[in-house]
């Protein structure tokens, strides 16, 4: 029994925030330099009243509009987000109703970021291969923009919002999930975090103070905080070893792989990783200049952009890494997938 990706669709919110706009808003930021380093020139952000679940709904509706899978065939919904609509219930339950999926459909949220798509594929693969589900709908949706302080250069220049929908099926042909590997190091949890708003530190009625850090970025404890240096160190330490582990498990070497789809953190990091692993540029696409780092959405977005160039039988390695710390990689054997890229 194998599990195959049969359909993939993406959604980007309408609002574009360009480097020019950020420059005009923040005269002290050197957006030209930042743009050169990060490779990000524009990012999309959700509307004020638009949530990650709304965007995931749109991605899923687009999938049902364009792909051959029928909504009544879906018997498990996995929704990856760190921006759920409510503390409870799970956004996946609300999405089951909005998408008019079967009431016999399982539906859960899972909280992961940059490794989330790999986790979704791993869980979907397990559900399908164990006979628990036949057609899994994996949704990713993220709106870090709602956590970001508009005067925090370190994160506002990087992150964008997006959503994607993927169907993983046991009964239909598609890109086969050959294997997945994941890893965790929670000792890095405080390096990419929104400290306030969960049960540990709840929102209070009094507004939290906004503080300026040593780099001139301003945020409160209810905003997203990122320690870029620590994230960079973590990535260099874990990602090459992760890919080695995945390849060793499957008996492949890097040369056997036709395409590496990395989480699109920023061009500086991704290019550095690529060079460190001696991978050729043409096998490691960058897809972030117009949309930014969209967290759990980067891998399916990049995959959808490159899908027209892939051939059946191509070996594709997907690699996610970040918030947690959490990391994961998966190997696909490509086949025709019904892809509806973002517009």
């Amino acid at each position: 029994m194998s599990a195959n990706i049969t359909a993939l669709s993406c959604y980007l919110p309408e609002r574009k925030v360009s480097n020019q706009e950020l420059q005009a808003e923040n005269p002290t930021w050197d957006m030209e330099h930042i743009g050169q380093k990060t490779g990000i020139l524009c990012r999309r952000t959700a509307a004020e009243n638009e949530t990650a679940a709304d965007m995931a709904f749109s991605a899923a509706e687009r999938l049902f509009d364009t792909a051959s899978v029928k909504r009544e065939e879906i018997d498990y919904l996995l929704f990856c987000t760190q921006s759920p609509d409510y503390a409870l219930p799970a956004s996946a339950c609300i999405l089951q109703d909005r998408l008019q999926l079967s009431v016999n459909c399982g539906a859960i949220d899972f909280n992961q970021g940059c490794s989330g798509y790999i986790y979704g594929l791993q869980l979907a693969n397990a559900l399908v291969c164990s006979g628990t589900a036949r057609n899994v709908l994996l949704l990713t949706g993220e709106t870090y923009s709602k956590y970001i302080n508009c005067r925090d250069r370190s994160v506002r220049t990087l992150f964008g919002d997006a959503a994607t929908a993927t169907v993983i099926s046991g009964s239909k042909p598609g890109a086969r999930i050959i294997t997945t590997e994941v890893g965790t190091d929670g000792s890095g949890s405080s390096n990419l975090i929104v400290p306030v708003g969960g049960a540990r530190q709840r929102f209070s009625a009094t507004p939290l103070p906004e503080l300026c850090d040593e780099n001139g970025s301003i945020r409160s404890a209810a905003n997203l905080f990122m320690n870029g240096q620590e994230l960079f160190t973590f990535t260099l330490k874990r990602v090459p070893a992760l890919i080695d582990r995945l390849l060793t498990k499957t008996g492949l070497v890097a040369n056997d792989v036709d395409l590496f789809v990395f989480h699109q953190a920023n061009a500086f990091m991704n290019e550095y990783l690529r060079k460190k692993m001696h991978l050729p540029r043409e096998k490691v696409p960058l897809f972030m200049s117009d949309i930014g780092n969209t967290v759990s959405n980067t891998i399916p977005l990049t995959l959808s952009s490159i899908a027209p160039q892939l051939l059946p039988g191509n070996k594709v390695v997907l690699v996610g890494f970040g918030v947690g710390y959490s990391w994961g990689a998966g190997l696909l054997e490509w086949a025709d997938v019904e892809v509806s890229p973002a517009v």
Partner: protein
Amino acid sequence: MTNAELVELFAEALEIEASAIQPEKEIAEYKEWNSLAWLTIMALLDERYNIQLSAADFRSFVTVQDVIDNITSKASAA
């Protein structure tokens, strides 16, 4: 590695001439200084010398010379 090589690496990260680097000057006083420059230094050290700096290292650095001393001691210990 020599001091001159490390000064060169620092200059490369800050995108300025090596002659503009003064080892005793405080890092924060370079106007080209920012968190991206740090990342570049980390990347170059890793790439050229297989040296990884920790966050604790970073917190202890005040001048360029502090960074050079730290790297030199790491290299001689290796």
